[in-house]
């Protein structure tokens, strides 16, 4: 599928009213469109509106969010944003209307070829999956997103591979066979009875539960990762702030040193106590008493006896018993049975060793007994815990004192740290509950994925038996297992290919300061270094994203705000020359300061390039109006859009000039 953005128009929103036509006089969208917008012209709002309009998410916005898009001082009650797409050449238009009075959002969708106008967000199902907010974020973003691909806290790189390489299709095959099995079980309608209906209800409910829990797991895992990083950052900031200053801070630093010491002492004390516990006789005197009683009684009973089972076994070979009587078959039989009651030599050896150890360990000694050792170790542990608690209280009290002395920012950080620590603990606990393999069966809403899977299998198995679809069920499970394994293998293979492809491109793009991708594990991990410079990271992010876009069989537009801003001239040139090769439509919101290097390189790589310059109409920009060209200008009360390379290259406004 190929999706192009044909244009958009906006009215009554924070960004100026404007119509942007990306097709222009030609019949197809050009490969590259550069839209120069000075800072303050609404680049961020436009990106947000593009995503909100295409994804249909605005209906879930609260009143505050809806009203946040109203332009200050504008009396109009409605704000609208309309995006026109070409889906495999066919038009699709989605309109988002924000009702500022009511505080609600609504949509209108126009599919000229099929369905006409619908008063809601209703793109065709085949397109819908590509309009999910997360997916749109892969091709409509600001320059920072590329850097997110290399942020260890994010999963953006993995998500991009799954989405762009359509690995979801393998899941869909699994879903299809599952539905087919379900359909076949329903065809056994004549056999359906209450039990079958109940099982189906239970299966559906458990399957829905699995989806909910799996989503919760993904969310909790991401939160643990992100919050964990935030906690580290906050703790470091607090630490740094607390470590600089006088008086209370000096006391605080000393208290922290003391706390470190007590933590070490506590660790040693706990180690000593555990070592003492490893001797069972130390734990309770009754253990020694019972073992001594056992040994004494074994001595009294003369156990193990000197006579062992082997003696009787050897006796069976003789013609006569030791008492001189003839060894009859009856006598042999009886001696054979009774010999089993006696201990053989090796068993006797173990018992003697046990007796020996009991004797050795319980013997009175001049050195301290195991019990005394444990008692001392426990006393040491108690003292170490008290010291550590005191040291922690001192640190906390001094920390509070510093906060009370007026460091509001520190206070806010500490509050945030406490809040995030609690949230982190909650998420960690939730993950443990989801991953546990020992949840007791019985709850109607189990939390453990393993238990849920087990129950789904059980219900499926019972339904299969009743509906005589056992073979089909097995085949379904085999196909699903193959799809799951294929997804895993495909992901790993695609990752390997992408890494090779990206590294080959990075070698060219970052010729002077090379950087290599080592692996993709949720995010892109660089070889041999934690992270690169901002410009390196951005370049690596672009190269990855464009390689992934190219790797999938779909073509999507890339809409980027400030694509080249943090890069130096050399990298701009190299990235600029790569872009037309790597995506079917590239739309960039730029400012004049990032044009040099980037634009000439783009222009050298493709003839299909369209230059648009846009600015607000204000008294501050009134000076620009007399200099507008005679053709290619469209304007209204709020904005001016000029088409043409000459005006674009000579436009010299970086920030919006207000009244």
């Amino acid at each position, binding site marked *: 599928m190929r999706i192009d953005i044909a244009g958009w128009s906006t009215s009554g929103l924070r960004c100026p009213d404007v119509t942007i036509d990306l097709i222009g006089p030609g019949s197809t969208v050009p490969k590259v469109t550069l839209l120069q917008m000075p800072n303050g012209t609404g680049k961020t709002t436009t990106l947000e509106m593009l995503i909100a309009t295409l994804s249909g998410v605005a209906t879930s916005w609260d009143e505050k969010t809806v009203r946040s898009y109203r332009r200050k001082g504008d009396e109009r009650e409605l704000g609208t944003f309309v995006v026109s797409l070409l889906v495999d050449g066919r038009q699709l238009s989605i309109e988002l209307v924000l009702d500022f009075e009511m505080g609600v959002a609504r949509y209108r969708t126009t599919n000229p070829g099929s369905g006409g106008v619908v008063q809601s967000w209703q793109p065709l199902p085949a397109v819908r999956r590509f309009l999910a907010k997360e997916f749109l974020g892969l091709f409509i973003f600001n320059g920072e997103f590329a850097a997110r691909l290399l942020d260890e806290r994010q999963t953006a790189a993995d998500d991009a591979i799954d989405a762009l390489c359509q690995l979801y299709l393998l899941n869909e095959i699994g879903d299809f066979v599952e539905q087919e099995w379900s359909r076949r079980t329903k065809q056994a309608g004549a056999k359906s009875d209450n039990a079958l209906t109940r099982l189906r209800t239970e299966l559906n409910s458990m399957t829905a539960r699995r989806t909910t829990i799996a989503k919760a797991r993904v969310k909790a895992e991401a939160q643990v990762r992100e919050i964990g990083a935030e906690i580290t950052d906050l703790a470091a900031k607090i630490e740094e702030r607390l470590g600089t200053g006088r008086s209370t801070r000096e006391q605080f630093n000393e208290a922290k040193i003391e706390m470190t010491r007590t933590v070490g002492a506590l660790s040693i004390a706990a180690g000593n*106590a555990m*070592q003492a516990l490893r001797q069972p006789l130390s734990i309770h005197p009754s253990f020694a008493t*019972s073992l001594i009683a056992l040994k004494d009684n074994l001595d009294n009973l003369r156990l193990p006896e000197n006579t062992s089972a082997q003696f009787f076994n050897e006796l069976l070979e003789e013609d006569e018993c030791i008492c001189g009587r003839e060894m009859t078959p009856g006598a042999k039989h009886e001696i054979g049975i009774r010999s089993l009651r006696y201990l053989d030599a090796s068993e006797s050896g173990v018992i003697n060793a*046990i007796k020996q*150890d009991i004797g050795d360990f319980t013997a009175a000694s001049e050195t301290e007994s195991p019990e005394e050792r444990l008692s001392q170790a426990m006393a040491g542990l108690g003292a170490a815990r008290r010291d550590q608690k005191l040291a922690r209280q001192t640190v906390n009290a001094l920390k509070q004192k510093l906060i009370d002395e007026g460091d509001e920012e520190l206070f806010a950080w500490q509050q945030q740290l406490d809040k995030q620590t609690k949230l982190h603990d909650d998420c960690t606990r939730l993950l443990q509950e989801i991953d546990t393999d020992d949840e007791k069966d019985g709850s109607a809403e189990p939390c453990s994925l393993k238990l849920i899977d087990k129950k789904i299998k059980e219900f499926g198995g019972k339904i299969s038996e009743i509906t005589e679809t056992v073979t089909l069920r097995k085949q379904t499970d085999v196909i699903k297992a193959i799809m799951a394994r294929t997804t895993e293998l495909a992901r790993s293979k695609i990752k390997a290919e992408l890494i090779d492809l990206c590294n080959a491109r990075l070698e060219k793009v970052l010729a002077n300061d090379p950087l290599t991708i080592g692996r993709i594990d949720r995010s892109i991990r660089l070889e041999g270094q934690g992270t690169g410079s901002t410009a390196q990271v951005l370049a690596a992010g672009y190269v990855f994203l464009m390689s992934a876009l190219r790797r999938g069989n779909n073509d999507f537009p890339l809409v980027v705000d400030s694509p080249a801003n943090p890069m130096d001239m050399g990298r701009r040139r190299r990235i600029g020359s790569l872009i037309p090769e790597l995506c079917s439509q590239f739309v960039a919101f730029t400012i004049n300061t990032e044009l040099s290097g980037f634009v000439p390189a783009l222009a050298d790589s493709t003839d299909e390039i369209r230059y648009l310059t846009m600015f607000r109409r204000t008294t501050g920009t009134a000076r620009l109006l007399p200099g507008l060209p005679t053709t290619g200008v469209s304007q209204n009360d709020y904005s001016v859009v000029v088409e043409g390379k000459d005006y674009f290259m000579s436009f010299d406004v970086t920030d919006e000039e207000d009244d």
Partner: protein
Amino acid sequence: MAYFRLRTDAQSWFSEIADSPPFRTKFDIYYLCLIAGLASGRATELTGTAHPATDLVEKFVEDYRPASRLIIGLLVTAELRKSGIDVSEKAQVRALFKRLVDSESPNSLTDQGMRRLNAYASGGYEYLAEQRDMKPYTAEEFIQGYSALIENAVEKLPPA
């Protein structure tokens, strides 16, 4: 071959403290449960699917090798008490040893002996979990309270 086995719910219960010092191996957790089981006389067999468990090791780990025969001795005394066998009943004491002890085994226990030892570790975990309001979150706090829990267990043990 019989292994020392620890219930998975016990492993979850100890999950906050088991993997860091002063604990050196999972056997430490097994041992603390076992002693609690032997002290309280509580044994819960790991049969069927009621209490899933995982194999730990086949032999006593290094830390516990010196005390291994004392542990077996404590198993014997616990089993004598549980079976109501007086220690003076020679034939029955001998038979109990034959059931529990095997010199050829790497851990000196028969399969049945190991099964019973694991049962005491399992019962000991139940005892500890019942006695505490919540799972342990710091090793230091748990260790300090452990002796008192064992003391209580021995006190509540009915006379033989």
